């Protein structure tokens, strides 16, 4: 069959695999340039203080030191979101967390740079630190920014929820807390800057978002962006932690400008904990009203986010804590209120699942309790409230394909959940949960009407295909997705594709490896470019063969008439025919997501061209004496739309499960006297090979009508159901509710011995949310 897929859907070896297994991949810290200097950053030892005086004279006098910078050298504020331009590359007046950058040096080696940091004298006036949501809202002492510690507060309502609650047969309310955690990529952030004699700046950086770094460098350095080149190096893990603008990127660039020499800054592991931008601690209250047969009538959801010292992605994170409730369940009426506060901790931002794992934990444990009260099994409750394919949620999110029901059956049948959960011995338990996630944010970080992803193809007359795209591979396999889609459309092999990615001088824009957007958006752009260039080849070949363009197919490195394949020409010959007609054979493709935002303020966060769905069952083995929870087996099903490369999708699913287990049971982001308690790989716990459970991965294909070849996302969604499934399994095993993530042994023991059989928050702080914006609901939900 000519139209069968040759590459898409096959578990082929990804193009960057051999460089990675041979140690040839060049990560940012692997780069060394002639005359390169080493930069280091002095960071605040105080969580909250005014900077009274910075004296760098002794550091400047140290032999081998070529430059010292303070905040006055980089005074322009920046931030990833246009609404939160609240960061300085080096703090000028105030420090807001332990680790906040203050000054920087460039020296001929790292030891001299370190010694120079010790010679910088900073005089501080300490301020009382604000270390919790409650303290931030209490409004004692000097606010961290401006006049209030409230960074963002939102209140939205879709339909009259109070009325529905009054009429509901059953109402339940829960308060839970998710402590937050950090990404912990194995590669520390690193950047190398080179300011040339030609007045042009190049920055190599381990970044998920080189385009946004490009914009920030232009702003802060006051250089035209046309003189700045940002090259993202392969990320040694990102998970959202390298998707912001970082001090060391701006500082390395400035140090290179000052010294005229290349400058490298590699963060230490401890500094990576301070750079953070990780999962927000979120305190949540969820209240649901249901009909007597277990259909959701209304939901009210409140979240309190602990943002740390700066804005970062926080406004988006705030909305994300409320956005995806209604893509996972059919909710006829919905109220969402949220507030993000500043605290004196490293800034929080996006981590895998951005703002949605916390409410997912709240919802999925809540519905486990609701099901028990209603006398329904937790699976049946979900099945009665499924979102429908080709529908729209009450908060205007458009759902295309939806494989949630199929995912549920896969894991429930695979694990024997319904039968086995009733007969587990004490200490062993099964838990279940479901989720949905974006396949790319539908709106860009800065307002514009341009495409989100662009791909350029240039065909070599000898049969090679140059593929240029701004996307950066962070381990998720984006290089493979781009190459596979183009190779599929052109009928060539993966090895015929030459990739150039994430280089702002050479590659057209891709907004970055965040929000699970690259397969969907860059994949669609690649497909469009490949189809366009294939059209040029078909025209040339049809003229030469005197056949109809519609009769031609591209396969096996040939372009042939469908029914007379022997009459075709090779791919290289086809390029030569096209090149003879019109010169360089090249084409571009772009992808702009459809405008899907609803008619209300705040509707820009949540829309996505498609949503992935996941379901999980987790089996735990708890030690009632030590409180330790061991995960022995996981069943995970993911609606991927279509797996462009199944082995890579499985890798994303398994990696998501693994990261979720670490979050559920281990990752502790706690502070003592303003200091992070565990800023090291030894004490900040992460699962090792010994903790790896048996995993059953099911890929459900729904062939989404808008995804490239039907594909949706895989990198983030599968993390979501796992954390609450662990909590529900602990309840099944021990009859205790740990309404607080992480579920550490001390909490389990406390719950076992406590009469309430529960550990978790009891209430939320008093806070006057803004007046509810009563948004219009889509016509199909009116009166529901």
């Amino acid at each position: 069959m000519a139209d069968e897929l040759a590459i898409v859907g096959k578990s082929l070896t990804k193009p960057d695999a051999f460089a990675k297994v041979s140690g040839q991949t060049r990560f940012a810290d692997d780069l060394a340039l002639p005359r390169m200097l080493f930069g280091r950053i002095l960071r605040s030892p105080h969580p909250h203080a005014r900077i009274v005086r910075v004296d760098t004279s002794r550091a400047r006098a140290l032999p081998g030191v070529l430059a010292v910078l303070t905040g006055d050298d980089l005074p322009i504020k920046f931030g990833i979101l246009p609404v939160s331009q609240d960061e300085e590359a080096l703090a000028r007046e105030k420090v807001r967390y332990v680790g906040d950058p203050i000054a920087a040096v460039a020296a001929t080696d790292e030891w001299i740079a370190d010694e120079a940091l010790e010679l910088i004298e900073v005089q501080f006036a300490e301020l009382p630190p604000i270390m919790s949501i409650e303290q931030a809202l209490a409004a004692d002492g000097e606010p961290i920014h401006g006049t209030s510690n409230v960074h963002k507060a939102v209140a939205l309502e879709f339909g009259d929820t109070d009325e529905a609650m009054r009429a509901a047969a059953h109402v339940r309310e829960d308060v839970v807390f998710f402590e937050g955690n950090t990404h912990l990529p194995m590669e520390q952030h690193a950047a190398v800057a080179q300011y040339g004699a030609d007045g042009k700046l190049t920055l190599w950086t381990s970044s998920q978002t080189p385009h946004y770094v490009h914009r920030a460098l232009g702003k802060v350095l006051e250089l035209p962006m046309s003189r700045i080149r940002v090259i993202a190096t392969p990320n040694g893990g990102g998970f959202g932690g390298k998707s912001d603008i970082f001090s060391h990127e701006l500082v390395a660039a400035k140090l290179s400008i000052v010294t005229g020499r290349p400058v490298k800054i590699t963060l230490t592991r401890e500094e990576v904990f301070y750079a953070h931008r990780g999962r927000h601690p979120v305190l949540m209250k969820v209240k649901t009203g249901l009909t007597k047969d277990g259909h959701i009538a209304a939901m009210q959801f409140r979240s309190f986010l602990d943002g740390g010292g700066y804005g970062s992605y926080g406004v988006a994170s705030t909305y994300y804590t409320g956005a995806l409730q209604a893509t996972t369940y059919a909710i006829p009426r919905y109220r969402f209120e949220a507030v993000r506060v500043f605290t004196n901790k490293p800034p929080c931002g996006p981590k895998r699942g951005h703002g949605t794992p916390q409410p997912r934990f709240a919802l999925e444990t809540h519905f486990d309790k609701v099901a028990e009260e209603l006398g329904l099994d937790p699976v049946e409750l979900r099945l009665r409230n499924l979102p429908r394919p080709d529908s729209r949620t009450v908060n205007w999110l458009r759902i295309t394909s939806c494989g949630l029901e199929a995912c549920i059956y896969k894991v429930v049948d695979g694990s024997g959940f319904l039968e086995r959960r009733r007969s587990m011995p004490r200490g062993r338990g099964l838990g279940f949960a479901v989720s949905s996630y974006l396949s790319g944010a539908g709106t860009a970080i800065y307002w514009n009407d341009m495409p989100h992803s662009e791909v350029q193809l240039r065909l070599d007359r000898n049969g090679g295909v140059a593929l240029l795209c701004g996307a950066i591979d962070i381990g998720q396999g984006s290089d493979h997705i781009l190459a596979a889609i183009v190779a599929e459309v052109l009928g060539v092999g993966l090895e015929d594709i030459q990739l150039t990615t994430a280089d702002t001088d050479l590659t057209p824009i891709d907004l970055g490896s965040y929000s699970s957007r690259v397969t969907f958006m860059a994949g669609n752009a690649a497909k469009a470019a490949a189809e366009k260039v294939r059209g040029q080849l078909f025209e040339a070949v049809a003229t030469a063969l005197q056949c109809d363009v519609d009769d031609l197919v591209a396969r096996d490195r040939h372009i042939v008439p469908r029914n007379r394949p022997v009459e075709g020409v090779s791919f290289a010959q086809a390029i030569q025919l096209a090149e003879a007609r019109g010169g360089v054979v090249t084409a571009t493709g772009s992808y702009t997501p459809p405008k899907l935002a609803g008619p209300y303020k705040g509707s820009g966060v949540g829309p996505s061209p498609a949503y992935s769905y996941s379901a999980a069952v987790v089996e735990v083995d708890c030690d009632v004496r030590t409180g330790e929870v061991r995960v022995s087996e996981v069943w995970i099903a993911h609606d991927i739309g279509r797996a462009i490369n199944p082995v890579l999708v499985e890798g994303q699913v398994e990696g998501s499960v693994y990261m979720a287990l670490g979050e559920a049971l281990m990752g502790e982001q706690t502070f003592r006297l303003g200091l992070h308690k565990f800023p090291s790989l030894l004490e900040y716990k992460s699962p090792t090979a010994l903790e790896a459970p048996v995993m059953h991965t099911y890929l459900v294909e729904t062939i989404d009508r808008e995804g490239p070849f039907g594909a949706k996302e895989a990198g983030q969604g599968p993390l979501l159901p796992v954390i609450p499934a662990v909590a529900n399994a602990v309840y099944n095993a021990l009859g205790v509710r740990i309404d607080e993530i992480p579920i550490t042994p001390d909490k389990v023991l406390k719950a076992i011995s406590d009469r309430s059989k529960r550990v978790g928050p009891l209430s939320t702080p008093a806070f006057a949310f803004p007046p509810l914006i009563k948004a219009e609901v889509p016509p199909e939900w009116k009166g529901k």
Partner: protein
Amino acid sequence: MPIADRVAVRLRVNGEEMVVMVPPYKTLLEVLREDLGLTGTKHGCELGECSTCGVLVDGRPYLSCLAMPLDLEGRAITTVEGMADGSEPHPLQLAFAELGAAQCGYCTPAMLLTAMALLDRDPHPTRDAIKDALSGVLCRCTGYLKIFEAVELAASRGGRHG
């Protein structure tokens, strides 16, 4: 830096004799990466906590971030660059590539070398033996499963260069 502050170190890396003049406090990790150009060896903490910097010394896993080169004169040091036979990848490298066991690729060199040391001493390890051997090397991408499967695939193919 005054020349008197440097010492000559003779190292045998991937079968090659190499002599470098380095400050005596430089770690093996730093000398490999900065003085010998062997950047395939990575670092995750430089405190001996994650094993990302793992190399083999006399065939056994060794944390290069804690090792002092002067202590290792005369010993056989193997880095990821020494795994392939010319341009022929080691069976572990092939299996890791085929099964998607390298996602970001940053822990991969240490993971591969640790697995190679395992297969050299136990050509057909059980899943538990693989888990045990690799338990010191942190990976944040894969959830380890593809890595276990790749080690098993390489073992089933003989585990060594043919």
